[in-house]
Each structure stands twice: as C-alpha cells, then as structure tokens.
C-alpha cells in the first residue's frame, strides 16, 4: 500500500480493522480498561460475601438471578467463579494487554523512531484474537453451572471434573495465549529491526528494554501453558487422564473417563506447566510497569535515570531467572529437600535484581528537581507499594516460613501489592503521562489528584489488612471466613478491607470522568508538554500515520536532562548538538 492510498481508507479499515499500531494500541487500551473495571466489579461483589457472609446482597442480589443468588445470597459456586474470573480478567485481559498491548503498542514504536510495528497485520490479528478470548471468557458466565470455578490456577483433578465453564475458560486462555505469542514475536522483531538510526541498544529508553524482556518472557513461557491447556482440554473433552491418577473416586464413585476408569496421569504435572508460565508472568506484569515508572521519574526529576545499565542488566537477569523459580509455588505439594532448596535459592537470587532496580529508581530522586504532577505521583507511589509487595515475597520464597503462610491472605496481600498499587498505579501513571501524546490534550490535574489520593488510601486499606489476617492464618479462597472459629476475631479487618475496596471503586469515578472529558475538553498542549527527551515526544500529538514527519536520527542516550548548560534543562535524543 503506498502513501497516497491512506486517505481512501474506509472508516472500518481505519478505526476497526486498522493496522496502524497507534489505533491498535488505543483499541487495546480501551478494551483492557473496560475489562479491568469489569474484573474489579467482580471483586466488589466478592468482598460483600467476605464482609457479610451469608447476608443478602442489597439490590444487586435480586437482579443477578436465582441461579447464582438464591434468595439474594451468593452461592459458593458463584463466589468461586468470581474468584477465577477476577484473577483471569485482571491479569490476562486487563493488566497485560494494557502494559504490552496498549502502552507497548502505542509508545514503543514511537520511542524507537519506527513508522509502525514490523508486522502490522499480525498486530491487528493479535488484537482481534485477544478480543475473541475476552468474549469467550465473558460468555462463560452464561453456560450451565456458570463460569470456571476451580481457581485461576485451574488445578486438576478439580478443574477436570468441574462444570462446562472450565472448558470455556481453557478455550479463552488458548486465544489469549495465541494473541500474546503473536504480539511478542512482533515486539521483538520491531525492537531489533526498526530502531532509528543512531539508536543503539544502550540508547533505548528503559521502557523499550522492559518491553523487549517482557516479549521474550511471553514468547518462551506461554507455550507450555498452551500445551497444558490442550492437555486439560483433552482430559475434559476426550476423556484422557493426563492429570488424573489411578483410583480417583469422585462423590463416592470411581471416576470414569471416556469408557474406562481414569488413571496414569499426574496432577502435579499441570502445576509445573502452569507455573512455568505463571511465574514469568509475574515479571510480565511488573517489568513494563517499571519501564513506565522509569520514564516518568527521569522526566519529572529532570535528571538522568541513575544506573541505567545496571537497571537494564538487572531486568534481563530478572527475566532469565524467572524461568527457573516456578516451583516455589509448589513447596507444600510434597517436594523433597534438595529440589525445594534449589528453587528457594533461585528465588532468593531473583530478589536481588528487583532490589537493584528499586534502589536505582529511588536514588534517581536524589539531587533531582521533582515535579509533583499526577503521573509522577502515581509513579512515586509505585516505589513504596512495590517495595512492600517485594519484601513480603521473602517469607513466601523460603520454604519454612511458606509452610505457615502458603495459601493464606498473606499471599493475596503480597501479590496484590505488586500488581495493584504497583502495576496498576504504573498504568495510571502511564495513562496520565502519555494521554497528551495520544489526544493532544492533557487530563485535568485536579481530578487526577483526587483520583490519586483516594486510590492510594483505598489500595492500602484494602490490602494492608490482608497481611494481618494472613499471618493469623486466615486461608484464601474461603467463601465464608466465619466458617472457622479461629477467624472470629479477624472479621473486623476483613470488613475494613471490603469497605476500602468499595471506596477504591468510588475513587475511580473521577478518573473515568477525567478520561472522557479530557478527550473532548482537555487543555490543548504542544507536542512535548512534559519537556521530555525520548523520541515519542518529537512526533506531533497525536502522531499521524507513519508517525514522524521526518525519519528521526538519534544522537544521544535517552535521559539527557540538566546535563549541560543549555537553555532548556532537557536535550531530546533527536536533536543534533550545536557545534
């Protein structure tokens, strides 16, 4: 297709089946934000049951129907479905598509000075496959028995003997995995092949590095889960027994798979294949978030990121190590001493690069000139929140302390601190930061600050109590915490957590308002409102098809702030030094 044909593109080719990375990025962004909000709503429902177990859910209970809310009270099956779908939607349909699909797609080619992704049609395909996966997941709520209810980890034999929703879940996952695989190939090739002239690997903004490492994680870790999904599908549909051992008795009857009794499989096998993906997945969730935070911190401290190379090396090392720590999720499955020691050791080792990155980001503040705008507030609060999330990972990585904390709310608190006030704050930071690039307008600072403070309080109110009830031994995935006498004294904090979650929900209203109002009525700004140095800010806002007016050439590293005696305190990558 040549240049002059662009104007003839129909509306559908331009905005729906577009192959422009920016449109696809926006599609990803909007879709994933919707999913993120939907997944959050599921959690608000769950929190009702936890705070007021067995009590009628006001108003909504009647609306949601007799099947899942007999007499307005949530059934345990539905509670479990909500748990599965919350996890799956937040991770695979919300956060990853936002970090990789939306920010990666939109910003990364701009930051490397490329006209588009390497394979634009593949890019489009990966969005539509992702959307299909999302629709399958949503549709599974309406099949008999409701959506999947065997935990987002889908451990067999429970998942193999579960209701139809599980089959839909697997099919949805296969779609999402395929989409991610296509996307990751595209990302790596784009970063390798389409960098602007002069943009060497060590002049790449940290965000691009994080996307590169993430793409490798997706590329190599996702296929085993796809394989596991196929095997579980075979177990459910073809009657095989990959995950079913001999002598399985379900409801007092020997389980018959196909025509013959089950046997010959191993339930732990699924856990290996699942966690082989799901641990790298944690870094898929956190690395691009660190990338966003790095960008914003460098920009708003007006000085270069401290320790750029150590950060890059750490993230590569992090990515590499994340493939050989997975079994720390499986300490209590009956693992012996030597291999659990191996995994505990690799787990301790992997904490070091995280510490390095976090330290580097904090030291970057030192001697800076810190602007407290909304993206920076979110980026800054990422640091302590991620620190809490990371530190509380230590007791879980050591097999001995894991005995007590495994499968308690402590685990929930830990990984939510990493992904909710961690990654999701980074996502908000990114939205506020790149919004002017996408729309040419700025979001309101005032509403943004209300959003920030309420979210910060809501997040901490929701997740901090989990550490306390977790240490006290309250187990996760419990429909009714009051079913154990030992939990009697813990219900106050459980309620506090629920109310915080609902407050957090309210706190998103200013954001939604701000987001849509700013698209039409936000303050118009120049191409480079934050006075940033990276390449995306040298393109017009919003960038036209093909991105740059002239093919950019890069002369320096990504974060040249306040480095010499120029009039401005920033030196964009594409500007040639004056003689």
């Amino acid at each position, binding site marked *: 297709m040549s240049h002059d044909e662009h104007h003839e593109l129909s509306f559908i080719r331009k905005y729906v089946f577009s192959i422009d990375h920016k449109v696809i990025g926006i599609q990803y962004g909007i879709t994933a934000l919707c999913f993120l909000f939907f997944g959050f709503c599921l959690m608000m429902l769950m929190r009702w049951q936890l705070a007021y177990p067995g009590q009628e859910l006001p108003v909504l209970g009647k609306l949601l129907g007799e099947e899942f809310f007999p007499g307005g009270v949530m*059934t345990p099956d539905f509670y479990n479905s909500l748990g599965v779908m919350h996890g799956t939607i937040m991770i695979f349909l919300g956060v990853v598509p936002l970090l990789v699909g939306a920010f990666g797609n939109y910003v990364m080619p701009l930051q490397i000075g490329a006209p588009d992704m390497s394979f634009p049609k593949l890019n489009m395909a990966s969005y539509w496959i992702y959307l299909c996966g999302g629709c399958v997941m949503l549709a599974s709520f309406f099949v008999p028995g409701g959506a999947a209810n065997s935990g987002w980890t889908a451990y067999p034999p429970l998942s193999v003997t579960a209701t139809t929703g599980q089959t839909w879940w697997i099919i949805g996952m296969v779609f999402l995995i395929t989409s991610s695989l296509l996307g990751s190939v595209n990302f790596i090739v784009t970063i390798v092949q389409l960098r602007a002239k002069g943009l060497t690997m060590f002049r790449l903004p940290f965000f691009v590095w994080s996307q590169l490492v993430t793409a490798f994680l997706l590329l190599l870790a996702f296929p085993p889960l796809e394989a596991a999904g196929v095997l579980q599908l075979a177990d459910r549909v073809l009657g095989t027994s990959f995950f079913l051992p001999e002598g399985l008795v379900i409801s007092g009857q020997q389980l018959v798979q196909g025509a013959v009794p089950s046997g010959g499989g191993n339930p732990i096998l699924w856990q290996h294949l699942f966690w082989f993906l799901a641990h790298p997945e944690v870094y898929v969730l956190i690395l691009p978030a660190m990338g966003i935070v790095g960008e914003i911190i460098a920009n708003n401290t007006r000085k270069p990121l401290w320790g750029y190379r150590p950060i890059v090396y750490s993230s590569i090392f992090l990515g590499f190590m994340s493939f050989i720590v997975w079994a720390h999720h499986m300490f209590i499955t009956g693992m012996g001493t030597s291999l659990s020691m191996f995994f505990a050791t690799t787990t301790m080792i992997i904490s070091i690069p995280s510490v390095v990155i976090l330290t580097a980001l904090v030291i970057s503040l030192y001697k800076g000139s810190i602007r407290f705008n909304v993206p920076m507030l979110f980026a800054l609060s990422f640091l302590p929140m991620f620190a809490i999330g990371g530190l509380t990972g230590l007791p879980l990585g050591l097999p001995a302390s894991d005995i007590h904390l495994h499968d308690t709310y402590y685990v929930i608190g830990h990984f939510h601190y990493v992904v909710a006030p961690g990654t999701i704050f980074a996502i908000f930071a990114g939205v506020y930061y790149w919004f002017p690039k996408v729309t040419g307008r700025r979001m309101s600072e005032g509403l943004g600050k209300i959003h920030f403070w309420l979210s910060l309080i809501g997040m901490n109110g929701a997740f901090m109590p989990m550490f306390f009830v977790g240490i006290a031994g309250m187990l996760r995935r419990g429909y009714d915490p009051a079913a154990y006498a030992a939990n009697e004294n813990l219900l106050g904090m459980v309620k506090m957590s629920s109310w915080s979650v609902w407050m957090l929900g309210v706190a998103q209203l200013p954001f939604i308002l701000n987001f849509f109002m700013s698209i039409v009525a936000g303050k118009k700004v120049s191409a480079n409102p934050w006075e940033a140095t990276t390449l995306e800010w040298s393109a017009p806002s919003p960038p036209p098809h093909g991105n740059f007016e002239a093919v950019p050439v890069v002369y320096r590293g990504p974060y040249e702030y306040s480095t010499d005696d120029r009039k401005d305190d920033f030196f964009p990558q594409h500007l040639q030094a004056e003689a």
Partner: protein
Amino acid sequence: MFRMKIVATLAVVTVSLAGVRVQADNGTIKGKVVFAGNAGDHKRTKLNTKKDPNCAKAKKAIGSYSVVINKKTDPMTLRNVMVFVKEGVSKKYDAPSDAIVLQQVGCEYKPHVITMMEGQTLTVSNGDDTNHNIHFLPKKNQEANFTQPKKGMTKDLTLLAEAPFKVKCDVHPWMGCYIAVFTHPFHVVTGKDGTFELKGLPAGKYTVEAWHETFGAKTMVVEIATDETKEADFTFAP
C-alpha cells in the same frame, strides 16, 4: 401465538378426558417385600455425624440406611424398596401437579427413597441450620450440584425418566438417597409394613420390579385382567 395456546389447551383437555377413561382401569397388584435372610448380619449402626455439630440439633442420631429391615412384621419385610412396573405400560399418563418434597433434616434425607414421574416437580429444601450441597449422580439427567447454605432455602427441579440413581450431600458424605423417575404412575416405596400396592392398572401383562439399594433388583411377570387384584410377593434372601 395465542392460537397455538388454544390448540395446546384443547389437546390437554382431550388428553385429560382420555385420562378420565383411564380411571376406569382398576387392576391392582399388591404384596409385600419379604426379607428372608439373617437380620443379625444387617444391623443398623449409628452414623458418625460429629463433623457438623448443627446436625445433632435436629436429631440425636442417624442410622445407617443401606438395609432397613422391619423386624416386627411377620415375615420380616424390607423397607425402602421401590416397587414399580418396569415393562408393559402402553398408555400415556400425565404427571401429577403436586410436588414431591425432598427434605434435608438433621443431616438426613427425608424420604430416603423417592419415586416420581417425569415432569413432576421435585422440591429440595434445607431444614437444617447448616450448609447442604445436593449432588445428583444420574446417568441420563443432567448432573445437578448445588448448594443451599441457609435454612429454609428451596429449589424446584424436574427430571427425565431414569432408573434409580443416587443423590448425595457433598458436605455430609453420609447423606444419601435414591430417586427413580418414571413415565407412568405405577411405582411405590415400601414403608414400615413392607407392603406395596400398584393401583389403577389396565388389564395386561406387566413386568414388576422391586429395587433395593443394597440387594439389587428382582423382577416378576404378572398378568391381570380388568379390575383384577393380584397378589405378588418379592423375597430377598441375601
């Protein structure tokens, strides 16, 4: 749409008129289910319900139910045996409009054996101050598995015709009962006297089956003339 309803109503009326004529069929098969084995080998024991203290609130103890012998009758008879016409019914019968109730009281199913007709409503209700999970294990019907976490909860179901299948509670594994669903009304369950009576049969040759959860099935062929009453006893001698 409306016209269709009229047609349907007419059809129903016609069928019920036919039903009135069925009333004229007055054949009866009756008898008892005799237990001819050693009662000492099949003592009932108290079931261990300690797991859920709420169970003991409604009932002090629950007995095992796999074999319940009426020792006081002479000869000894078996309780909880389904007796039904297995083959030989050619007419169509409507399902009765009254619902059959399966109660959960004191962590026990009441009644322990249910026979019902296709299309008839089965109401499952929780009379306990605890959580029950009703799990149907049929071969033909859809597997039902639902929870009633609170006292007073009810749920209505209809079932397709199917040979006896088990229903259990996933929370209290000892709880079990059996349901069989028929396309005709000729089925009863023996009670404390161990007798049964199948009434309203048209003249014909029938295969009658007695089904017991532990001892299995026994069948016999009975031929009755119009308005005839025939006696037929089943004997289980394990």
